[in-house]
């Protein structure tokens, strides 16, 4: 009987691979260099494995696509915080991959303790990759007014200027350059083995479990808890000097980072890395301050006034406007680089060539509920709605969405530069939704004082000129 196992990519990959090796599960194709999403075991031919971003694993196990999964406990708790009835059984702590989740404020803000937090009258802005855990935690603290701003990453870079609090993982004295002050420990987490509830209740998983059981660590005790970071160890630095006239520019991290810096340099704007503070590069313009954050997070940050300008992709602006159509953020300048197409993709083996085919009776017969995986959840949702693909279900993904087809999703809404990756994975494009390039976004309504407004329009003019040259 086949057993389906979901394994993590990324930070947990080496230690998971080592642990499986010790259990006698030797895998081919499960390493950082591998481009395949389907490692396999020569000795266990009935084992079907797929690798995912670890955040996707609890969802994949809960919906029953995989019988067993290994991922960080924090992602399991993030799912259960919002959906406690999810069909996930937490089988065992695997004892490695330890991480601490903290609620932290900036060292330079007045919020130095939980009690001060409760006494705050104005709404607290909380950035985090773990919005459900954050909401549950502050609700239980009885914080009255708060606004959770989910981010794809780099939560630690936001306080103090662009958020009041961050719910972050480890590394409090980290790369943000401005030390965070831990206020409360939210969770200490290890890698966990999890199971789909129905599979656990009725399916024989002993082929794997027998091998795992001997290698399971003794249950974790409180005494082993990693110490709460000592606040005195955090080097106090003075608050960065900012004025109301300063313009905050968000620059993208990841693969968009270098082309953006190059583009700005050609436009006459020098971006210099600060070794002490890598998320806060310096700009050669007075009154301009920059931070490096995820492009996905920029539209909502600009809409909320946490940043004034940002260089992101038109795809992410569009995704934001699909869910918040009247959001006060707009495209100032299309910058022309980082061109991708947003496409609808299915497996090559399916007899669908156009979106119309997805509406056909045969599709509804063969795939009664169309499973749509996408990083662009809101674009995908609107696409499915506009094309009358009902009934459908959305599966939000965190990268490498092409791995979901064909087993775990039927349709993908994905970006593609050349179409090569899509073809390599045995997939085909059936529709192009739109083309997207990098863009400068800013607020719909001018904000700030005269000096700030003129700085914003100067930068916009500078970048527009660079595009037309």
């Amino acid at each position, binding site marked *: 009987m086949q057993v389906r196992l979901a394994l993590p990519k990324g930070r947990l990959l080496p230690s998971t691979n080592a642990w499986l090796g010790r259990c006698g599960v030797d895998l081919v194709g499960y390493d950082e260099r591998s481009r395949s999403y389907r490692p396999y075991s020569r000795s266990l031919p009935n084992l079907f494995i797929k690798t995912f971003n670890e955040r996707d694993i609890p969802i994949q196990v809960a919906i029953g696509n995989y019988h067993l999964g290994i991922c960080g406990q924090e992602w399991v708790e993030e799912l259960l915080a919002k959906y406690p009835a999810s069909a996930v059984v937490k089988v065992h702590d695997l004892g490695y991959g330890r991480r601490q989740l903290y609620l932290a404020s900036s060292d330079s803000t007045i919020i130095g303790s939980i009690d001060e937090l409760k006494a705050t009258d104005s709404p607290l802005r909380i950035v985090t990759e773990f919005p459900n855990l954050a909401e549950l935690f502050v609700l239980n603290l*009885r914080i009255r007014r*708060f606004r959770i701003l989910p981010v794809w990453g780099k939560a630690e870079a936001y306080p103090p200027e662009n958020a009041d609090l961050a719910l972050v993982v480890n590394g409090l004295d980290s790369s943000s350059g401005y030390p965070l002050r831990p206020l409360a420990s939210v969770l200490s987490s290890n890698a966990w083995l999890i199971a789909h509830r129905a599979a656990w209740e009725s399916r024989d998983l002993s082929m794997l479990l027998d091998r795992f059981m001997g290698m399971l660590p003794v249950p974790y005790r409180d005494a082993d808890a990693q110490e709460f970071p000592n606040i005195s160890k955090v080097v106090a630095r003075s608050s960065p000097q900012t004025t109301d006239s300063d313009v905050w520019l968000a620059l993208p991290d990841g693969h968009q980072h270098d082309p953006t810096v190059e583009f700005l340099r050609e436009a006459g704007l020098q971006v210099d890395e600060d070794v002490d503070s890598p998320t806060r590069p310096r700009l050669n313009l007075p009154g301009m301050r920059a931070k490096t954050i995820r492009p996905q997070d920029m539209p909502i940050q600009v809409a909320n006034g946490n940043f004034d300008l940002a260089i992101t992709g038109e795809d992410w602006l569009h995704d934001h406007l699909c869910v918040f159509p009247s959001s006060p953020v707009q495209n100032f300048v299309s910058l022309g680089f980082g061109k991708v197409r947003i496409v609808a993709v299915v497996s090559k083996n399916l007899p669908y060539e156009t979106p119309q085919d997805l509406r056909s009776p045969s599709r509804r017969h063969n795939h009664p509920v169309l499973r749509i995986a996408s990083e662009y959840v809101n674009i995908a949702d609107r696409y499915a709605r506009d094309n009358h693909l009902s009934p459908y279900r959305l599966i939000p993904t965190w990268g490498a969405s092409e791995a979901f087809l064909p087993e775990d999703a039927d349709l993908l809404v994905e970006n593609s530069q050349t179409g090569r990756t899509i073809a390599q994975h045995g997939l085909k494009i059936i529709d192009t939704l739109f083309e997207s390039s990098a863009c400068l976004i800013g607020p719909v309504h001018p904000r700030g004082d005269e000096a700030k407004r003129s700085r914003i329009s100067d930068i916009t003019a500078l970048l527009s000129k660079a595009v037309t040259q």
Partner: protein
Amino acid sequence: MDNQRCKGSRDLLPTDMTAFRAMERVFASTCLRYGYQEVRTPTIEYLHLFTSVGTLTPSMLSKVYSFLDWDGWSGERVVLRPEATIPTARLYIDNLLQGGPARLFYVENMFTFEATGKESRERWQFGAEMMGNSSPSADTELVLLARDILGEIGLQDFTISLSHAGMIRALLQELALPPSEQSHLFDRIMDGDHAGVIAQLAHIRPDLKEPLSMLFDLKGDSSAFLRNLRSPLVRLLPRIETSIDDFIAVTRLLTDLGCRYQIDMTSGKGFEYYTGTMLRFDAAGERVGGGGRYDDLIPLMGGGDIAACGFALNANRLMRVIPCREATTPSLFLRAQDQAHISDRLLFDIASLLRKAGYVAEIAQGYPQRTRHRWALLVRGTDDRPSFLLTDQSTAKATELGSLSEILGILQVVNAGKAGPS
């Protein structure tokens, strides 16, 4: 075909709506007679109304339907209202504060998640709130109002249970626990875990074991029960004095007015905002309503020092326990024997006259219908010379009649002695 209704939701069918509207009419007219005025709050409210201490317990907050609105880019969440007292207090603060004390009532639906899908996730409530009166007579008035409503909607047998949140709070204060622990224990009691909390308290203060047992395990049916408890409790827990005296005043007045109730300190369950007397109504083994005094809620929401109390009745549960009453308006089903000779126009004219006389008149349309009406009226002859066959379907007795006034005559005779046409 599969049932396409959302899990945890419920259809209200014609018979349900008949029962619902009948209850609603009784509820509204009784409230109006007591001087209460109707309001209706929006279905969607800001989440932050419900999140601070003294509003909803965390376990209730974990079951609300909250989401980001289409303009929710700021992260400000909204909820489908999970209860009505907080929105009504908000409505009062926003609109009616200048007018002083107010008596308000509402008929509204509430939304809370329920995992099994067996209970409805949408509940209809009939509620009444009194703003701006801290006296025991205000609590008494609400008990009497609820009693009158439950009696008039036809509930044969129901119990009124009373308890007092102020006494429970004073008890927790006496134990010198940290405020967060106090509020946690209070939440557990409000969520229904009395036994667990009492065991824990008796463990902390062994000398309280007997007094707590007297207070929570025994049930009284008059203020004498509280007066008997007063001195042993106040000796050990001085802070309980004010609350118990308030509770005695409420119960004494109810006894004087001949209202039957039981004092059951474990009956209080509900919201974190309760501060004084708590009410609970049970019938046929179901909790059909509850309420209480919430003097700190309006101050907490920024409305100033205004005391308030209220109750709500659960319409969904009342519909289950109240015997279904037959509709009293006589009704007729009209049909032409031969459509070639009797025009639609004539049928409409006859139906219109019957309706004006106060009867329900339904005209046969299209395909053959089964009729739920007591009377069937067959129109025969021609437009120029119609005649009628009136059948009482309960007895199958048919009568030939020549004019509409003869029909009205028969209906009046048969219905005399019963409730006439309304």
